């Protein structure tokens, strides 16, 4: 390389002192060089130490962490050897950080204007008087509408995407040489994410900045980075150009990681990566990945592999880089279970509307017209036995709300729910009959929240078994052990508590609890979104397996179009609590499609350097659904006029069971690019 690196991290080891007093490392001898104008991605799963690395690049460690050895050279000196005042000058100045969750990283009691002004005062060379103009200029650069109004707002008054843009503007205030980005788009909607990434790419190019981009998402890395470094258990296992790494990675872990990502293109289950990374402080004599590696030999168990640089520029920590290509990266090959044709009805929703606001004493006497539109409205759906319906939409689309209503936790304001046998499903769960209760079970998004931390696994699984089947004592325990087997956990898990399980194991227990009732309908609310991608693949595989075995009906809610694609027979797309499109998965993901579905599909990122998302519309966040017309009218890229504002669009039947709710004729919606 001709020019010297801007940030040069050498042999960095960071750790914390465990309860026993021993030093437990979380980063093991990391080397990282970033040059001006270069963008490097740091990818890894939770616990890989990637965020710690990004913060360490600024000479900062979280409370409790200590540097063991190594150095972080910036501008000729070690960041860890600098005085606090020197550090304060560099941080926010030459080195800017964009945090993961700006909603929490902006001080809640300070207006945006004051926080931006603070950054300008500390790091900007302009005279004091020019600061307010500069602040507006910065907000315009990050494409925030009405910057003057934003300056007067408090952080919580902005949407997630807006907060993230403010954080970017704040980092730009110091005219940085390098940006450190710690998962800056995690938790944002797909369209917002695509917009922010676009913005970052442009800014980096225009200002010739270096970027260190930390993410768990290879799709994001593929979009913004030139090079990528893969971390596993605090160690670099692979480093190289993004294209080479994504096309044919030279390390088995990277290969496994890529294989576990569900793709939009093919409807097959991703391949799961079994096992879990070692805990900090575990024995690391051999290759850290050996216990999970398909290629591992005795050699790998005893010797720690060095970094070897291959021909394509990939530096891998593996003894057998040439053999990694033998690992199958295609889908798991597990036969996708599919529901039988013409199977009987399991559940239908008829004109369901749901409101969160309870009318106050006064509002009850007011005409219904003056009330705000319902959060979820006009949902008519039917589910056949054994089928999986995917519900997709961005945050606020009401997808989880519908699940809660089916579960009886949130009674609908209008409409009815009917079970397959024609009996009406009582709105409130408290009034449902035991057999109705048993037939519908729900799995929640975050197992940390949905499993009682004070109960043992046996007790957790015992709750439905006692309630529905009156099981007791040895019988109950035997059945609980059997259930654990079906989710591929052993009976030795019975006496553990949720706190002693990994994220994936917890979600398996939650799934086992739902199946303990031998339900007909299983409601899955974003059940993989709190999990790492390799663990997600395993859970998807398990669900597919259970689906085949139990002939249960699934309602699968997710914001992730690829995950829904992998598992669903039919898909329904929701926007602002209204259905836009519904139909067989292949039809919804193909053409013709609703403009909103198209926007969503085009914003999806794939771990493929050749994939380019298309941004069809602005990512403005809407707070409440419009009172009339098409719910998507404010953001629709192909809005045809007054009609969309005033009239609710009609359902148009495309093919068998595929319907789109839009004023635009079907043949126009079939065109590949409507803009």
């Amino acid at each position, binding site marked *: 390389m001709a020019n010297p690196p801007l940030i040069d991290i050498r042999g960095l080891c960071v750790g914390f002192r465990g309860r026993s007093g021993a030093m437990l490392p979380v980063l093991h001898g990391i080397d990282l060089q970033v040059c001006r104008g270069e963008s490097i991605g740091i990818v890894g799963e939770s616990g890989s130490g990637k965020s710690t690395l990004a913060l360490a690049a600024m000479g900062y460690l979280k409370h409790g962490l200590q540097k063991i050895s190594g150095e972080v050279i910036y501008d000729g000196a070690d960041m860890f050897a600098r005085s606090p005042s020197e550090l304060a000058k560099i941080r926010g100045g030459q080195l800017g*950080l964009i945090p993961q969750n700006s909603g929490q990283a902006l*001080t809640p009691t300070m207006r945006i204007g004051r926080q931006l002004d603070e950054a300008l005062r500390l790091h900007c060379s302009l005279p004091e008087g020019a600061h307010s103009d500069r602040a507006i200029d910065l907000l315009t650069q990050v494409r925030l509408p009405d910057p003057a109004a934003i300056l007067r707002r408090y952080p919580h008054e902005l949407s997630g995407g807006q907060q993230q843009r403010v954080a970017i503007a704040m980092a730009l205030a110091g005219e940085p040489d390098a940006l450190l980005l710690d998962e800056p788009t995690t938790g944002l909607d797909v369209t917002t994410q695509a917009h922010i990434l676009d913005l970052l790419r442009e800014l980096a190019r225009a200002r010739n900045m270096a970027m260190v981009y930390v993410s768990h998402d290879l799709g994001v890395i593929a979009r913004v980075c030139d090079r990528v470094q893969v971390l596993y258990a605090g160690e670099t296992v692979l480093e190289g150009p993004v294209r080479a790494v994504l096309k044919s990675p030279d390390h088995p872990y990277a290969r496994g990681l890529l294989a576990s990502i569900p793709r939009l293109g093919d409807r097959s289950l991703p391949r799961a990566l079994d096992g879990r990374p070692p805990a900090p402080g575990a024995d690391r004599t051999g290759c850290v990945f050996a216990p999970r590696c398909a290629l591992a030999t005795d050699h790998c168990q005893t010797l720690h592999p060095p970094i070897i640089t291959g021909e394509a520029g990939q530096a891998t920590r593996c003894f057998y880089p040439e053999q990694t290509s033998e690992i199958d990266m295609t889908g798991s090959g597990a036969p996708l279970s599919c529901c039988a044709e013409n199977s009987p009805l399991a559940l239908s929703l008829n004109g369901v509307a749901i409101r969160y606001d309870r009318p106050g004493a006064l509002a009850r006497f007011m005409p219904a017209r003056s009330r705000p539109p319902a959060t979820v409205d006009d949902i008519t759906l039917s589910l056949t036995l054994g089928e999986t319906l995917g519900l997709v939409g961005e945050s606020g689309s009401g997808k989880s709300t519908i699940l809660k209503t089916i579960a009886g936790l949130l009674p609908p304001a209008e409409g009815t729910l009917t079970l397959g046998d024609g009996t009406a499903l009582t709105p409130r769960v408290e009034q449902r009959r035991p057999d109705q209760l048993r037939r519908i079970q729900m799995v929640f998004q975050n197992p940390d929240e949905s499993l009682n931390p004070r109960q043992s696994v046996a007790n957790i699984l015992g709750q439905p078994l006692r309630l529905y089947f009156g099981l007791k004592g040895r019988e109950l325990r035997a059945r609980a052990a059997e259930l654990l087997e079906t989710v591929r956990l052993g009976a030795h898990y019975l006496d553990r508590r949720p706190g002693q399980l990994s994220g994936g194991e917890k979600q398996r227990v939650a799934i086992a609890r739902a199946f303990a009732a031998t339900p007909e309908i299983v409601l899955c609310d974003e059940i993989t979104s709190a999990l790492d991608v390799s663990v997600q693949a395993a859970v998807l595989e398990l669900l597919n397996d259970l689906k085949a075995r139990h002939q249960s009906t699934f309602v699968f809610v997710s914001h992730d179009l690829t995950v829904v694609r992998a598992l669903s027979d039919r898909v329904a797309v929701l926007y602002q609590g209204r259905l836009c499109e519904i139909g067989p998965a292949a039809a919804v993901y193909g053409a013709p499609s609703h403009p909103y579905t198209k926007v969503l599909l085009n914003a999806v990122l794939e771990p493929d350097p050749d994939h380019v998302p298309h941004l069809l519309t602005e990512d403005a966040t809407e707070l409440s659904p419009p009172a009339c017309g098409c719910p998507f009218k404010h953001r629709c890229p192909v809005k045809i006029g007054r009609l969309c504002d005033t009239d609710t669009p009609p359902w148009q039947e495309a093919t068998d069971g595929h319907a789109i709710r839009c004023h635009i004729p079907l043949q126009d919606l079939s065109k590949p690019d409507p803009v």
Partner: protein
Amino acid sequence: MIQLLLRRLALGFVTVWLVSVIIFLGVEALPGDACTAVLERDAHGEALAKCRADMGLNAPALARYVDWAGGAIQGDFGVSANGQDSITEIVGYRVRNSLLLAAGALSVGIPLSILLGAMAGLWRDTWVDILFSTGAIFAMTIPEFVAATILILIFAIWLGWVPAIVLTPADAPPLEFFPEFVLAAVVLTMIMIAHIMRMVRSSVIEVMASDYVQMATLKGVPYWQIVFRHALPNALLPAINVIALTVAWLLGGVVVVEVVFNYPGLGRLLIDAISDRDLPVVQAITMIVAATYVGVNLVADILGLVLNPRLRSHHMRRG
């Protein structure tokens, strides 16, 4: 916002009204009434009947409640059990004296407790923190009459700086209370500092570990600017309610401390009234204390709403 304030205000009134009902019913349920208390051993036969008729005790309970509550709203609590002294007059001076004591303790205690709490929180687990936190546990737990007795033992008896026993009439000018005032204020200040300090400490620790303080550090904001601009405003918000509780406690007549130091405040009047079975006075004091409690908490709630932008617009959207 306005709607929310009105709601809080209404709830405050409901609470005060409930207190008045509880007190009235409580007094009703007690055996004996004002007449048995005044007449003592002569409380039988004609004398009792006459007294009851004179004091309007034969009227139905509801009528008497309305009569009493109506007077209380206008600041007229009737006459004391001996049938001569206006309660409003007796209580007036006592309220002033209690306020004086509270003002003394608060003016020193609030700033000091915030300072000590912030120091302990910022320098957590250092000797400063250990010293302050241990001190707080002692100050909080040692019974107030024990602390008071120790102070009297040291400053009045051994050092002789203040007189050990004073008897100042309740209606004396404020400056004459000085001797008993100082030690009483010291005891109260110690206790309130301990409570507020602990709250501020844990709040500061939580805020200093927050994402936004980390972000400010990585924005290059110097340490003390982080503390004063980013951390303290957020850390002190939850302290408002704790401060309100201590203020209410101080204004509500600190019975034991006033008795120990012979300080003619509301607390001592309450004890005296109970000993004398002077129920009208007890009722009056209770109403004043309860209204103060509700009022101070209301002010804290409103202050919290005004100072916390998150709460403010959260409720605005709903209200």
